[in-house]
């Protein structure tokens, strides 16, 4: 693992790191070591500048104006859509709906795709390792419709069981909603295999890609999924931006989610005609500046190449896991064979929250707690974990700082 190709990506990463202003500050007298990208990532200077320039030179409301600024704003906003369609290889830009985040995207599908036809006896299937954003919308939906929420189990490594899923996917199932990568455990799920099975039974599949898009090349046509959701703020773009990819034929048939400006062709009190895709699902003034920033973030990622990022992170995650596993009294949570970006752990009997504080005092930012995945914590019988998560800008130095800080924590509590 420390072999031939380990050096090169690390060198790249320190170049990449230079583009992120937030990483070059001191926290509590120490250089910041940011290992919390799974919660939210930092932005490269190009994204910050794109938003600023947009505000200083091009802002106006989109779609509805003949004047120059409005035209500029519309071009900037819509070209972000083209870029994102290209990035995840959607077959058409009409399949890219802009939302405020993964949570918004999933709620849209629950309310607009499922709710109108769901009835008692129908089922929605999710897995035990989902983020609350891929649990609660379905619980609410089931309460509203009388349908049943069914949960596919996980094993001690934090992986789902494909054969159990195969059994669950019967004709009662109206949607299977699944994480592509688990935020609490880092597990990469065998989504292609699962989608293949669901397809043969005509069951639509939604993937929660919030933790996948920043780390892996994602190709929605290759995956053959029906819906794919992700958030801008986890992929080096602004908060308040998200994407719902939906297969055109499905989006076409869905009623709108919210009503308002821009999602209509004609409004009268006798009746209203809805707009074409994707605008039917984009009611109200969108987060224009945010999507301009997200477009810049995607451009940044495309310039480096997701394959390279993936390789760099893979090696770094292996290094981190190895270094962590050598710490005394550590228990790694999430040990699936195929993982990305994340390692959760418990240090001796120190509560994760205390670990987080002690690390922060040494400049090391990690997340502690349930990571919005309480059922995962319940499964492992723990109140929460400490979680270190990687992004393209992290290096082995970051991992070394993490390990040193954990030793200090151990000392304080012993």
């Amino acid at each position: 693992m420390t072999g031939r190709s380990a050096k090169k990506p690390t060198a790249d990463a320190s170049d990449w790191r230079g583009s992120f202003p937030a990483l070059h500050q001191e926290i509590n007298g120490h250089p910041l070591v940011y290992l919390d990208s799974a919660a939210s990532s930092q932005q490269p200077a190009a994204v910050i500048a794109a938003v600023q320039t947009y505000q200083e030179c091009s802002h106006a409301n989109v779609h509805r104006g003949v004047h120059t600024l409005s035209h500029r704003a519309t071009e900037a906003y819509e070209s972000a859509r083209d870029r994102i369609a290209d990035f995840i290889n959607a077959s058409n830009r009409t399949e890219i709906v802009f939302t405020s985040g993964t949570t918004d995207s999933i709620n849209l599908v629950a309310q607009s795709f499922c709710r109108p036809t769901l009835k008692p006896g129908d089922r929605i299937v999710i897995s035990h390792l989902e983020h609350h954003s891929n649990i609660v919308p379905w619980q609410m939906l089931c309460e509203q419709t009388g349908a049943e929420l069914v949960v596919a189990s996980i094993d001690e490594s934090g992986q789902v069981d494909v054969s159990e899923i195969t059994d669950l996917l019967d004709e009662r199932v109206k949607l299977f909603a699944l994480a592509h990568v688990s935020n609490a455990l880092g597990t990469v799920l065998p989504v292609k295999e699962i989608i293949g099975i669901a397809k043969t039974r005509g069951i639509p599949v939604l993937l929660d890609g919030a933790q996948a898009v920043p780390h892996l090349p994602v190709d929605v046509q290759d995956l053959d999924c029906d819906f794919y959701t992700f958030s801008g703020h986890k992929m080096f773009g602004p908060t308040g931006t998200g994407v719902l990819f939906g297969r055109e034929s499905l989006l076409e048939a869905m009623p709108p989610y919210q009503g308002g400006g821009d999602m209509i062709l004609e409004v009268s009190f006798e009746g209203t005609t809805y707009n074409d895709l994707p605008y039917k699902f984009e009611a109200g003034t969108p987060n224009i500046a945010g999507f301009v920033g997200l477009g810049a973030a995607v451009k940044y990622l495309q310039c480096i190449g997701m394959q390279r990022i993936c390789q760099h992170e893979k090696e770094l995650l292996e290094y981190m896991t190895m270094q962590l596993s050598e710490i005394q009294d550590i228990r790694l949570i999430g040990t699936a064979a195929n993982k990305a970006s994340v390692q959760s752990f418990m240090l001796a009997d120190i509560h994760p929250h205390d670990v987080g504080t002690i690390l922060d005092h040494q400049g090391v930012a990690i997340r502690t707690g349930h990571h919005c995945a309480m059922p995962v914590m319940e499964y492992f019988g723990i109140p929460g974990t400490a979680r270190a998560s990687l992004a393209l800008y992290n290096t082995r130095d970051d991992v070394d700082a993490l390990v040193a800080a954990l030793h200090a924590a151990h000392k304080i509590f012993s």
Partner: protein
Amino acid sequence: MNTQSQSTDDLRDLYRELILDHARSPRHFGKLESTSHQAEGINPLCGDKLRLYLKIDADQTISAVNFEGSGCAISVASASLLTETINGLSTERALDYYANVVYLLTGVDAANPEIRLDLGKLKALEGVREFPSRVKCATLAWHALHSAINNTNDTVSTE
């Protein structure tokens, strides 16, 4: 290196021996059987979850107090110190302690008019003030106390 050791000093001030001791061996821990008042405290953001049980006599004396649940060292130690402090006090005096601890940790007066008490062992919590993101851990049990005495029987959340 200077900042390094300074920062370690801060940490030692947060995790004082007394705090670590109460965190490891919480006093009055476990469910209380014959309880007259209880309340739950949840800190949703780090998963702390405590339930406080009180037995309040007719004359408003707290004749028994216990807690159970799980949490970080700060919240467990704070709850443990709470049980030691208020056991045997009148509810009124217990609420005075509540107000004083909240004031110690946040600088905000939770009672009006304020009464200043000698906090004794509870002063060990004062290191938390330097760690704003941990203040809610230290106040959790105290908010649950307030809620239990006022019989709201509610879940208190410190978000």
